[in-house]
């Protein structure tokens, strides 16, 4: 594949960076696919803005950060207001349903996928913290076989606490269903 850029934005503590790492680790196992993962966050460990980025490319990745995302997640209103206008023409923007997108720029409006991510995590999985894993389920459906979903599941298992694996698998699968 040619260069594909993913940006995950939300608040500190929502697990954006962990989600980025999981995606990058899942990409590792794909033959010939290179990956870089970077982040931007404030000094605080909770609150503030947090952004993780993953760049995939079969060739060498020179510039390691996202230039214009092919896939953008905005989990909070603040993240949407800040990053919501930058998207490739044929890109996909995933936003949580609670986000007010009425002010979205004309050129990105048709590319917005508004999904009940936080609600799914809180009500269906039973833990708001799993929202980042719900997101990975959604992204898995969007990127298809670029990174097989079994790789992502494997990477999640390796990264989350053992006793939460089942819950996180559920979160991932519910995320997949949101997009299907």
């Amino acid at each position, binding site marked *: 594949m040619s260069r594909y850029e993913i940006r995950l934005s939300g608040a500190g503590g929502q697990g954006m960076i962990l989600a980025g790492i999981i995606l990058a680790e899942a*990409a590792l196992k794909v033959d010939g696919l290179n990956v870089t993962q*970077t982040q931007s*966050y404030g000094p605080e460990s909770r609150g503030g803005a947090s952004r993780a980025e993953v760049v995939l490319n079969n060739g060498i990745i020179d510039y*390691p950060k996202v230039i214009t995302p092919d896939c953008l997640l905005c989990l909070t209103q603040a993240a949407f207001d800040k990053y919501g206008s930058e998207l490739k023409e044929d890109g996909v923007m995933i936003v949580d349903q609670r986000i007010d997108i009425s002010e979205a720029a004309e050129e990105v409006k048709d590319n917005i996928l508004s999904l009940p991510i936080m609600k799914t995590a809180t009500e269906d999985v039973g833990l708001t913290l799993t929202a980042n894993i719900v997101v990975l389920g959604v992204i898995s459906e969007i990127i298809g076989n670029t990174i097989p979903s079994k790789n992502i599941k494997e990477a999640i298992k390796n990264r989350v606490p053992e006793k939460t694996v089942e819950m996180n698998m559920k979160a991932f699968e519910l995320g997949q269903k949101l997009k299907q």
Partner: protein
Amino acid sequence: MSKKEAVLLQGDLAVVEGGMAAGAEFFAGYPITPASEIAEGFARELPKVGGKFIQMEDELAGMACAIGGSLSGKKSITATSGPGFSLKQENLGLGIMIEAPVVVVDVQRVGPSTGLPTSPSQGDVMQAKWGTHGDHPIIALSPSSVKEAFDLTVKAFNFAEKYRQPVILLLDEIVGHMREKVILPDADEIEVWDRKRPPADADKENFNPYEWTDDLVPPMPDYGTGFRYHTTGLFHDKTGFPRGTTEDAKKLMDRMTAKIENNLDEIILYDEDIREDDNIVVLSYGSTARSAVSAVNEARENGLNAGWIKLKTIWPFAEEKVSKLAEKANKIIVPELNQGQLIREVERAAKGQAEVVGINRYDGTLIKPEHVLAEIEGVK
């Protein structure tokens, strides 16, 4: 870590892996964003091989402690970021003066002062050279990728040991915190150098720790092995004791300078891709090199004659190389995450033979390839 298998590795942890591969035995320091992962990594890895990790009360003590570890014969390293690097300068000078092999990592963040703790910068380039007072030699290496962070950490230890010289490893937040897919070399593929020690049957009673040898690097015994000697920040003679003479001062300064200057071919490392007809050259280092290479590739696709050089060794500066580049090129572009630091060296080496233009950001944001491309294309 299993070798020969692709791993997702963070730049800071590549420093740890590189250090362990080079034979690091001692880490002393104080954690600070964005270098804390280096301390954490060494705290995890060193005890596994019988090494020691110590967190000191502050960065001054961390630097002093790393020098002490080195004197006792252990390959030593400390790691910090800008604010801590400022605190280490006094003892860095001591390390240079007593010729202690030690690796000092500075993962640069935006300064001055506490600045922007989690954002990248290349603002400590001149500090790496001139942060500690007085004339002195220094070696500073700057990786632009996770793999280079590994490779240059090995080099940093090797240079430190071979030349009895503190070596600065200048990362920036991007390279330090970035994770990349890398394949690390096996141990038998890595060249590891150790310091020269006096022979075991040397006369310990009449031993001179700063003897003038042909290679200008005196053999260094481990403290505690029967070689009793004195170290001091004062200018000293071959016995290690200060006499306060102008003669000793000049002699030691000249030797310390020459031990580096005589070996520039080995110490100055760079990568380049400059074709015969390339009249525009982008000179960069660290994370900025990623944008430079990307921009040059795009410029070439647009039919422009552009090339790039990426300095892996910043100090000593590749003066001769840049001077030669300037003879051929019309324009040298120097992107930096500061207000223009290394560009001064480039201008000095170019001696007006080529136009030297900087691209500068100092707000914690990486320079994008499009900005470099615009400069190559001459678009303002």
